[in-house]
């Protein structure tokens, strides 16, 4: 396998019952340092695809390789691999019973054996970067949506992951808060983080993505540079989708 490929899927299928095919033979590669944005109509399987990458979604068949290891193999300790795959959710999923700081230090201290003080310093440094150092001792319920999502991003980053997975990170936000979250993500991309982003933010895709994947009905229909996809979509479904989201 190519050294640059960090995640690779092979013929990933996900069926619910017999009739619902959420994923149909999805094969894709994510290279190190690449920002891949996955777009598509709702129900196209893009979230399912993203969630299969760290096995939050158990694929019915097919394989997922992470750093060359087949993590769909039941013998693999998935928890160790997940430590290197940060994930950000649409609903933030911060831990409401802990302060922001505790949210950030929990995993590094418990999973990586980091000292509490060291983890706190790291967390504060990261919070500083997203402009939230003053909220370290707040509880999630005291934060706005945009602040919650920035904390959630930092929580994943505190584990120093190799790749970050974003599952519609701005879809649950009020419009005026979308910008602050996207700008954090843009900075992350600039720093060279490998990112897979499922989003409806076409502006972000155009500006930041190295590659755009368009999915429909559980399959990858088309992929290419933002230029290729947005200016010159080949498939009819891509054209139809872009027309409907860009002309609103």
């Amino acid at each position: 396998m190519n050294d640059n490929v960090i995640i690779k899927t092979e013929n990933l299928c996900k069926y619910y019952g017999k009739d619902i095919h959420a994923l149909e033979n999805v094969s894709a590669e994510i290279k190190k340092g690449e920002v891949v944005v996955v777009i598509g109509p709702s129900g196209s399987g893009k979230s399912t695809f993203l969630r299969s990458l760290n096995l939050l979604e158990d694929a019915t068949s097919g394989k997922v390789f992470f750093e060359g290891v087949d993590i769909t193999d039941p013998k693999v300790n998935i928890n160790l691999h997940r430590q290197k795959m940060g994930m950000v959710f649409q609903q933030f999923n911060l831990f409401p019973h802990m302060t922001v700081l505790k949210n950030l230090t929990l995993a590094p201290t418990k999973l990586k054996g980091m000292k509490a003080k060291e983890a706190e310093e790291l967390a504060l440094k990261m919070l500083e970067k997203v402009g939230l150092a003053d909220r370290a001792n707040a509880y999630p319920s005291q934060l706005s949506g945009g602040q919650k999502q920035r904390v959630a991003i930092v929580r994943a980053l505190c584990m120093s992951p190799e790749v970050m997975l974003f599952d519609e990170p701005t879809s649950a936000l009020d419009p005026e808060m979308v910008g602050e979250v996207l700008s954090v993500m843009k900075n992350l991309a600039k720093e060279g983080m490998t990112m897979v982003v499922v989003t409806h933010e076409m502006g972000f895709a155009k500006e930041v993505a190295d590659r755009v994947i368009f999915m429909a009905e559980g399959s990858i229909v088309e992929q290419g540079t933002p230029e290729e996809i947005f200016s010159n979509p080949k498939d009819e479904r891509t054209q139809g989708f872009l027309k409907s989201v860009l002309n609103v």
Partner: protein
Amino acid sequence: MSEFFQTLQSDFIKCFITKSRWKLIWDGLGATLQITLFACLMGIAIGLVVAVIRSTYDKYGKEMRNPLGKALLSVTNFFCNIYLTVIRGTPVVVQLMIMYYIVFASSRNSVMIAVVAFGINSGAYVAEIYRSGIMSIDQGQVEAGRSLGFGYIRTMMYIVFPQAFKSVLPTLANEFIVLLKETSVAGYVAIQDLTKGGDIIRGATYETFMPLLTVAAIYLVLVIFFTRLVSILERRLRNSER
């Protein structure tokens, strides 16, 4: 009026002072608290294990990939269901007598037997309380924990239980209060608890009013005290949320 108080006074002396009968109440109170406390701890431990098995089975039992784990989970879940059905389907007095006369027939440590009987009984109810708490926690919390790299058990420990515990605390406290009062049937197996202590005084003095109302009042004070304690705890825990 003064006559009434005089009778009251002489009744009081007869019931509690003569032959140091207050000791029956005092020692009985000790036994009651001892049984309640340890049975409660036992119930919480049993309840936790049963609730985890049941909720894990409900959520993941059908889609687990490891065949050995799946079989193990199904079997333990099956036994948990039997436990819940039997314990919740029979009266606690009968369970207590079965423990005393059959299971621990050779032991005369009746307080220990009562702790075990009430603990096993309470565990069944606590299990269902916990389970409802675990089920009420948003699945996203589990996913967030797992995505960070925590295994299932540790996700439960750090993320789900603390939140679930908080949401079931009032119900759990209620179960503790029910348990406290339920232990009053311990007299059936020759334990001198609070109720039995009062009853012994009644038998010895032929006074009904004084010993029984005193016992009732002590239970009432205990319940009020524990209710207050829990509401303080609840308020402290709530500080972090909403």
